[in-house]
């Protein structure tokens, strides 16, 4: 409801209300873009473009209650454009899994042997982030976007379906197969449960 109030104030001419709206959502949109594209600079760019589009088109939004899904729709489209611009084509294939294993091959030994004795390698946020990002890069984009929206943005299946303009069953199916694929990636890299649950 706060969003609706801010939108109404902005439509009456209060630019400060629009800025408050931006500051409420910029962290979420930025982290969403980052998890989709993987590049902090590109994510900042996407975040700015998203809010510029919102600024230009907010007056055309018929239902302010749909602001959240509309915002994510804009961000998702921009992310897709960025990914296609980089000509990334990620599929779950044996070859990709093998490459992922080789890239991640330096991880398992230190982790499996005694993760508690190698904090300098893995047990900080940067490495966890890189590891999960690599794993997400191994699954198809359509599954990845559903997982990111569900796990990190906390959106409901109905909201994700509205954003991506798909049926709810399709979204749940992508989530199911996406999580299954990620589990296989984790197993392929032979990462033990304890290693990822270790906290400093």
């Amino acid at each position: 409801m706060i969003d609706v109030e801010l939108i109404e104030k902005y439509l009456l001419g209060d630019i400060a209300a629009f800025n408050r709206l931006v500051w409420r959502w910029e962290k979420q949109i930025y982290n969403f873009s980052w998890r989709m594209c993987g590049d902090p600079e590109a994510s900042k760019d996407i975040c700015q473009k998203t809010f510029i589009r919102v600024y230009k088109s907010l007056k055309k939004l018929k239902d302010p209650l749909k602001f959240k899904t509309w915002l994510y729709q804009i961000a998702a489209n921009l992310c897709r454009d960025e990914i296609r611009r980089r000509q990334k084509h990620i599929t779950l294939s044996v070859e990709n899994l093998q490459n992922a294993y080789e890239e991640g091959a330096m991880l398992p030994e230190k982790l499996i042997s005694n993760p508690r004795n190698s904090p300098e390698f893995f047990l900080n946020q940067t490495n966890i982030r890189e590891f999960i990002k690599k794993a997400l890069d191994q699954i198809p984009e359509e599954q990845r976007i559903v997982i990111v929206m569900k796990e990190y943005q906390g959106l409901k299946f109905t909201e994700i379906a509205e954003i991506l303009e798909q049926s709810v069953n399709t979204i749940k199916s992508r989530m199911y197969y996406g999580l299954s694929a990620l589990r296989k990636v984790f197993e392929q890299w032979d990462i033990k449960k304890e290693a990822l649950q270790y906290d400093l």
Partner: protein
Amino acid sequence: MTCEEAKYLLMDYLYDEMNAENHLEFERHLKACESCSQELANFRQTSQQLQKWDDVPPALNLTFVDQQSRFSASIHRRWQGFFRLDWSWGRRLAVGLAVILLGFSLTNFKAEWKNGDFNVKMSLWPQAAEKQQIADLPLQQEELAAYQKEQLMLMNQMIKASEERQRKAMTMSLINFADELETRRKSDLSLVGTSFEQLQFQTKRELKQTRQSLDGLIKIMQVSSPQSNQKRRR
């Protein structure tokens, strides 16, 4: 409920989006089916692993200001409109008119109809009275003042927005600093506690050893003292 049906409901259950009606039946199925229970546990584990990737602050300074002032916007529109003319005929017309008007203004062209007479005057230098009129131009001055006022308002808005952002950032920094300080204090206290425990343990051990030594010594003395008494009696 079959496993096939349960599979479709797995995501709803995992993310707490299941309705009450299906919830009971699904849980009943989980209790009876090890395979589905294991699959759910696997998904839960994967989800928990994914949650290790925390959000980061964006470090952006997005601030929007009002659109252009009416004065500058109208100037901008007019300027853009000028370049949208159809150059094939409009250009000729516009250029021609511009030249004519320029000529009139340069030559201080003046045409008047008075008492049946039509007079036309042209001169390179403006008359004294006209000079005074040109010099006044109150309308342009008013527009300039309005433009300056709007610019000032814009700047004030930007400054206010920037101040609010800085205040917010400062508050967050202080909160983070306080949290970090508290964490370190607890960690230090824990370390001190551990050290005291170790010291206590060591002290007890040494005391025990000392006691054992003393006990041994006392025994020896006790053993040796009856023997010496016997010798004395002999």
